[in-house]
């Protein structure tokens, strides 16, 4: 039974890719297809005192560490958007980070969007495929890149690590601003699968701050040894055959204010195990506000709080449960081609069940100061200083001081075409 499921879960992502590939293959034959490519290469110079990053199997919260600094590949990505029909778009993002991931080039998002013409004040949008849920208010750029700094906030870093909607999302927007009212209101709902291992990273390591997105077919190194036969943590698998959902609302005052709230529940069965990974029951609420002043000031506030559980239990919530909570406040100002951003992140996790087996406790503050400079249409310069300070109890399992202090400075030169 378990082996059947394991085989089943391996097939499903490729099955999902099939209609996308058929559509890509048909693109040259469709009439009036518009293609947009956006590629970027990001080279970094990194100086950090992170001892061993989670990307190298450690518990460091930064992406780079003392063994991986100086000159590094920040990221290379290709963002493709094609208009297959008048109201149907295809978007695919290919990613490479030049680290020890399974595939040197992988897919981070691939989806179709159907956006029919608005009628009677309503506009429907449907996405089908693998994509980010509409939570982040920072990651607005091509390739889901932050528009304000190199590293995303802790909340959006975690979304990039563990969360992808692999399924369908419907967004119904009441376009009040086109009906003589001030605001637009959107209702969002999605059903998805293949996200059952979600929660394992925040359980083992807690929140982190960096810019690395986990690819759909990639993995992350294991932080603690486990009995699984796979080399790393694979996050996009269906294990319990139970679909997850999220539902949310967005109120926006066009060009000025966006207010969002979303409830997420992957409806995982914490008792399910496919022979490699466990299913985790991960649920959270999130809320966010972005305000853009005419004077080029931007303020972003986001909050997320929830829990994740694994292992059989009488109440079905899991044998081990970790609660997680984070918020950030970001203030950014553009000066023509220059942008300066300051962000404060609060990172907190705590075991609420089974702490005697695995004690997860994180209470860390993060400060990020970033400077972006658009030299021209192709070249961008980015500099970022990041400091994380606080306590991470699980470090003591590795013989480290639970008090943590990480400082990372990055200088990026980006070429986009």
């Amino acid at each position, binding site marked *: 039974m378990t082996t059947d499921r394991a085989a089943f879960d391996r097939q499903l992502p490729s099955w999902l890719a099939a209609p996308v590939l058929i559509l890509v293959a048909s693109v040259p034959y469709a009439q009036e297809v518009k293609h*947009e490519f956006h590629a970027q290469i990001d080279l970094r110079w990194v100086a950090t005192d992170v001892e061993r990053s989670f990307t190298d199997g450690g518990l460091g919260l930064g992406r780079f560490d003392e063994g991986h600094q100086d000159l590094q590949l920040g990221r290379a990505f290709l963002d493709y958007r094609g208009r297959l029909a008048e109201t149907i778009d295809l978007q695919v993002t290919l990613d490479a980070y030049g680290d020890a991931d399974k595939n040197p080039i992988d897919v981070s998002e691939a989806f179709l969007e159907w956006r029919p013409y608005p009628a009677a004040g309503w506009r429907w949008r449907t996405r089908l495929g693998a994509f980010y849920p509409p939570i982040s208010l920072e990651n607005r750029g*091509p390739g889901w890149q932050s528009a304000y700094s190199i590293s995303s906030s802790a909340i959006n870093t975690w979304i990039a690590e563990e969360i992808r909607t692999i399924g369908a999302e419907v967004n119904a927007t009441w376009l009040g601003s*086109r*009906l*003589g009212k001030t605001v637009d209101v959107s209702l969002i709902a999605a059903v998805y699968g293949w996200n059952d291992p979600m929660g394992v990273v925040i359980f083992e390591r807690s929140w982190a701050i960096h810019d690395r997105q986990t690819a759909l077919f990639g993995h992350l190194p294991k932080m603690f040894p486990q009995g699984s036969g796979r080399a790393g943590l694979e996050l996009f698998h269906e294990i319990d055959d139970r679909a997850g959902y999220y539902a949310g609302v967005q109120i926006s005052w*066009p060009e000025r204010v966006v207010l969002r709230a979303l409830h997420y529940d992957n409806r995982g069965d914490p008792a399910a195990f496919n022979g490699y990974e466990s299913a985790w029951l991960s649920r959270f609420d999130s809320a966010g506000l972005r305000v853009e002043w005419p004077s080029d000031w931007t303020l972003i506030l986001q909050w997320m709080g929830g829990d994740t559980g694994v292992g059989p239990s009488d109440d079905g919530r899991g044998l081990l449960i970790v609660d997680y909570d984070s918020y950030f406040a970001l203030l950014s100002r553009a000066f023509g081609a220059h942008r300066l951003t300051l962000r404060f992140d609060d990172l907190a996790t705590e075991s609420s069940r089974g702490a005697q087996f695995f004690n997860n406790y994180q209470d860390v503050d993060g400060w990020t100061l970033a400077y972006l400079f658009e030299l021209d249409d192709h070249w961008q310069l980015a500099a970022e200083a990041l400091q994380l300070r606080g306590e991470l109890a699980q470090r003591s399992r590795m013989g480290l001081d639970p008090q943590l202090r990480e400082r990372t400075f990055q200088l990026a030169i980006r070429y986009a075409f």
Partner: protein
Amino acid sequence: MFKRLNLLLWFACCWLAAATPVWAARIELDVLDHEGHGVADVVVVALLQNATATAGAPASRSPAIMDQAGRQFVPHVLVVQTGTPVAFPNSDSVAHQVYSFSAAKRFQLSLYRGHAHPPLVFDQPGLVVLGCNIHDDMLAYIYVTPSPYFAKTAADGKLVLDDLPAGNYELRLWNPRFNEPQAELTRAVRLQTEQRLALNVRLTRALAPEPRPKPAKPGWNDY
């Protein structure tokens, strides 16, 4: 002799034509916010009361322009007389899909670049709110009025309506940033022949903030 008469008639006509404004009235208007600063881009329409039904057909049929540049509509506010064709060129490299649900003009322009669609005739008075299905931050207004006497205030809030025939008028003022109790401000004015009327209109409440100029960022997502 006839030649001289022709010439005389010609001069008489020229004199008449040139002299018309001397008889016509003129309104010099100053629109001020609640702190006394000039308000730009306010639509001002003078509606002649008791006008004959035939008056007000637009003299010019050349289309007004609502451009799309830098992922914004340009201008943000356009005022036209009923019956005026409006062209919607797209000067951007990205495609747009323009629509309106407003009662005065409901339409959709299927996805396009450049000058793909012929101008649309705005044949009903009222306010038309424009949007783009691809870029929700794009928003603009077309104010359609039956009157041929209209203009928008300059950056300093000043405006001149010239060549108005004598009569009773209702002045209507509108801008999307108004926060006044009524959607439009109105003033009744009576114009005598050759009158020059200087008028101040002061808003009672603070304006809504100006729309933020959108950075032209291709590839940005709206999720």
